[in-house]
Structures are given as structure tokens and as C-alpha cells.
């Protein structure tokens, strides 16, 4: 792979992507069109995130890649390997050690700091897409700040189901201006969108980049009498006993027994290293 430029993309392309990122940071929540390139992995598999990471990485960076909160899911492994080969940057699984974190579907549990960049892979950047499929219409709606349709949708959910029937990719309003899709993170993660790190969102197939500068105001859409609730499974982690982390449900046997474990594998690992033990966990180092 040494025939390829640092982080695969050529410098002109990276410059074009950086311009889109800067524009995105200047207009938080606005979707900036960019000339997305064909990458050597399929559209829908993180090409937007990969291009943003490629344009963001410097040789001194330390990269972490997670999918569903975990470092060892197959696509996270594949993307990490891609950057190891094409950029030769250091990689880590430790959230605190990473300067750039590419993620799909989760925000790490540990708070990020001002020296970190979180890059999201985004499938459908347009929060209004499933209310109005036409890009020509939705761009107008954003320009005119015409978000009534979204509120009607949320209202209809409540009248039909008694609840807002959106549990992930829950829409937010950024700095009182743009309605934004936070990518398919569970709504549990929404409150974390106000953070110290820079957040960049890349949608390759849809050719859009958007961004949240540090400490940007991000409000999950709701109603006064139906306030937003960041929910998760009502259990502690069965391995590390964490009460505050998002949990995956794992089926253990044919009898349908379940366990709940942190989706953020690094968070779970670090808690166990500190001696926390869950219902099905064992004292670190006690077992072979």
C-alpha cells in the first residue's frame, strides 16, 4: 500500500474535504455538500467517516475506531487496519489515548476532551429524509427553518403510541438553528453531543459533511409536556456493574437467558481493571 498517499487520499482531495469540514464548523449543523470519492470499501460501510478521518489525521495522531461502541467489531477492525496500512498512524483501543476517534452508532461513555476529534459515520445525513425524500425540498426547508413537519411527526408518534417512537438517530436542534441527524446513535447518547471535543460527521454516499464545534448547544427535539428522555436498558452491566453506560443485550442459551453488557468495550474493560465486578463478572485476574 506504500504506493498510496498518506491516509490514502491525495492532497487535493484532502484539501477539498478540509474546506468542507471548516465550512461545517463555521455553520454548526448545516450539511455541506462535498465531492465524495469512491473509497476501497463500500458506500454505507463508513466511507464518509473514513474520508473525514483521512483529511483530519496527521502522522502524530493516535486513532481509535469503534463500531457499536466496540473496538473489535469486524468493520471497526477493517477500518483501523486500513489506516494502519495507509497512514501508519498509531492506533489504540483506549479512549483517553486517542486523538481521533472514528465511530459508528455510539459516543464513548468517557467524556472526551478538547484535544480530541470524534468522527461519525453517517448513513443518511438528512433528518427530514423520511418525512420528505426529495433533497430539493429538504434543502429549502432547512433554508427557511421550516421544521413544522418534524414536530408534527413527533406529535403524531405521541398521539399514536403514547411516546416518541424514535429510539436512535433522534433529531436535535443545533444552536437554535439547524435540525440535525446525530447519526444512528441511541438517543441515550444525545445529551453527550454537547462536549469539549470537535465532532465531525461524514456521509460518503450522500456527499455531505457536517460538524459540531466544541461546546455547541445541541437540544434533542421534544415538547414541554413530553420532555426528551435518554433511555437505556434498566440494568447494570453484568460484567462491570456500571449503571450509567449503554448496554447490549446478549442471549446466553436456548432457555432465553440474557445478560447485559456495556456496548463501550473500553469503558467496561477499564472499569473491570479498577475492580468493579458485575453479576456475571469475575474478579480481574482471578480466573485463567
Amino acid at each position: 500500500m506504500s504506493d498510496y498517499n498518506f491516509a490514502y487520499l491525495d492532497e487535493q482531495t484532502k484539501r477539498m474535504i478540509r474546506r468542507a469540514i471548516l465550512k461545517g464548523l463555521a455553520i454548526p449543523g448545516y450539511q455541506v455538500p462535498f465531492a465524495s470519492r469512491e473509497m476501497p470499501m463500500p458506500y454505507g460501510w463508513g466511507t464518509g467517516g473514513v474520508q473525514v478521518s483521512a483529511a483530519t489525521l496527521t502522522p502524530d495522531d493516535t486513532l481509535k475506531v469503534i463500531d457499536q461502541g466496540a473496538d473489535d467489531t469486524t468493520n471497526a477492525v477493517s477500518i483501523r487496519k486500513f489506516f494502519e496500512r495507509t497512514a501508519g498512524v498509531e492506533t489504540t483501543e483506549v479512549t483517553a489515548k486517542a486523538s481521533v476517534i472514528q465511530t459508528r452508532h455510539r459516543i464513548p461513555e468517557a467524556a472526551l476532551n478538547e484535544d480530541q476529534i470524534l468522527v461519525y459515520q453517517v448513513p443518511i445525513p438528512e433528518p427530514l429524509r423520511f418525512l420528505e425524500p426529495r433533497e430539493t425540498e429538504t434543502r429549502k426547508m432547512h433554508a427557511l427553518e421550516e421544521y413544522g413537519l418534524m414536530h408534527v411527526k413527533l406529535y403524531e408518534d405521541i398521539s399514536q403510541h403514547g411516546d416518541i417512537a424514535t429510539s436512535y438517530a433522534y433529531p436535535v436542534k443545533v444552536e437554535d438553528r439547524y435540525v440535525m441527524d446525530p447519526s444512528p446513535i441511541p438517543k441515550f447518547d444525545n445529551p453527550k453531543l454537547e462536549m469539549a471535543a470537535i465532532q465531525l460527521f461524514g456521509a460518503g454516499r450522500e456527499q455531505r459533511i457536517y460538524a459540531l464545534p466544541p461546546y455547541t448547544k445541541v437540544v434533542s427535539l421534544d415538547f414541554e409536556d413530553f420532555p426528551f428522555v435518554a433511555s437505556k436498558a434498566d440494568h447494570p452491566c453484568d460484567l462491570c456493574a456500571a449503571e450509567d453506560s449503554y448496554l447490549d443485550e446478549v442471549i446466553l442459551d436456548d432457555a432465553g437467558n440474557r445478560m447485559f453488557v456495556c456496548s463501550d468495550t473500553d469503558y467496561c474493560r477499564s472499569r473491570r481493571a479498577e475492580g468493579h465486578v458485575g453479576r456475571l463478572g469475575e474478579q480481574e485476574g482471578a480466573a485463567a
Partner: protein
Amino acid sequence: MYVAVKGGERAIDNAHAWLAEERRGDTSVAELSIAQIREQMSLAVNRVMAEGSLYDPDLAALAIKQSRGDLIEAIFLIRAYRTTLPRFGYSEPVDTGAMACDRRISATFKDAPGGQVLGPTFDYTHRLLDFKLAADGEVAEAPTAEPRTEETPHILEFLQGENIIEQEPELDDEPGDLTREPISFPAGRAVRLQSLSRGDEGFILGMAYSTQRGYARNHAFVGELRIGKVPVEMEIPELGFAIEIGEVELTECETVNQFKGSKTVPPQFTRGYGLVFGQSERKSIAMALVDRALRWEELGEDNLGAAAQDEEFVLSHSDNIQATGFLEHIKLPHYVDFQSELELVRKLRREAQELAEDMAAREAAE
């Protein structure tokens, strides 16, 4: 104790090793060479070049070999390779009027200057399996003749002389580049044609077919279909003039479409246009039909609400690399989103049940 599944990296490496073995198949059967694929699977090679947007028969053949004959996968390999190539510049527009035609037919005129040339076509073959090919592939030499020396002008030019077909005004506008600028709508005809030319053959065919069956029917005749090689010229800044840098095989289809006239345009014939790398007849005809359907607005026709008239719909869904990537991404882990849905549905069901019990209790009390 529960241990989370680890070892994704080894699983991936092993899967790829197995894939390589499967690709090769039974090693007692001779391996395919790139040259064999290029020469004997040439229409597959053409499709990969057309939808991969890269004219290189050897690389296309390699991609077909590597992808085990999955043409969309091969197109993907070519696209991913192509995007890494530096751009030296843009060629001069190719002159398809100067094409050395292997095939040239018109469905609108019985004869025309340049003649009807059937060329190497499946048309009029009886689709009977040729079991002789299973035994040996030797073929008798085809009869040959001297190539025609006279010009082969575009047939639609004759209609133009009579001023009975729409004039395509010559423009010096620089056409957009789909691969360098994000697409926006309305895209304009040049970008539209670029997009259709690299669009999925099956999708374009389906769209075109839908117009023939009445969803924005546009009464197309194949005014001309020609296949052959054209020289590619490029202006070299240091020289100050254009030189020939190679040649490409193209299929060009021009349709003549019936047209009654509209509020803005007098009655005349209109055009649809298809141009595709290689011998790609089906694709170029389909492209011309879809091009014509998409032109409803500029010709002042009614929007019939047909899918093939909807530029945003057609262009957003014609690229098979985008489509297949997004379709297949649902194989990726979605534990986190699914978990949140699981909890939501459980909660809604709990609430619905509580409500039902509540109602039942109230009814019993009454």
C-alpha cells in the same frame, strides 16, 4: 464467565483466505488468464469499463477475475482504482461522426449514406444452446471485405437538414464533472448523461422499459445505433495543439421521438441520446430513452408523475456501487440501534397492556 467475541481480525483474514481459494475453484481445472477474459468475455469487460468509468480492458478483465465474475463487484474494484488516478486534463470531445463503425443500423430509414451494417450482433441468432461449444470452441473464419471508405454521417443530420428535428444548440459551456463535484438538482443534461452512462445497466433498462409500457411514453425510434472505435485527442499545453492519445470503442444511440409540440415548441421530432463505453447496445438504447424522458421540462411537456421523468429519483438511484453498498451495509452490526428499538417496543407494549387492563378493570367496575 461470559467472554465477548474477540478475534475479529483473525476471522477476517481467514475469511479472505477462503474466499481466495473459492475464487480459484478446482485447481485441476486450468486457471483463467486475463487475456482469455478480455478476449472471450468481452461484453462483460465492456460493462465493467462502462459502469466503472474507466476504459482499460485489461484492468476490467482483472477485476472480473478477482471478483469471481460478480460484475458489480468488478465495477466497484475499477471505481476504487480509478479514483486514485491523477487527472492530467480533459480530452477533446470525441467525434462519433468519424467513428470506424463495426455496426451501424437505423430503424427509421431503410438505407442511408454509409449503409446498414449489422456487424457482430446477437440479433437474429436463434437462442439455442450450441453444444458444440462445450466440446471445442473452434470457429470458422468469418467472411471479410474491404472496409468502407466513404463517410458515415449521423442519420439524424438528414432530418436536421429538413429542420424537422430539434436543433441541439452548440454550447461552449464547460460540462460539470460528476466525479469532482457533488451532484445537485436540477443537474442539467450534461451531468445527467454522465450519470446515466455509468449507471447500472439493469436499472436504466428498467426505467427505459417503464416508459415504453406507458409511464411517460415518448415513442422512441432508434434513429441510429453505431458501434466502433473513435480516436481520443487531447490538447497538450506545451505543444499548443491536440494530438491523438489513443482510441476507445463506443456505442452511440440516437433516438427520434415523436412529438406534438407544446406551448413553447412547434411540432417536430425530438431526441434522446445514449453513449456508452464498449459494445453496450442495450445500455445505450435504454440510456437514450431515459434521457428523453428526463427532458420533459425543457421541452415544455407535462410532468406525468412517472418515475423515469423524475431526475432526482433516477440519478439518485442509478449508481449500482452506491446502491449495493448501502443495501449490503445492513449486514453490518446494528446491535445498538436494535437494542434501542427493542426497549422502545417493549415499553410501548407494556403501556398498551396497562391501558387495556385499566380499561377492562373500569368496565368490570361499571
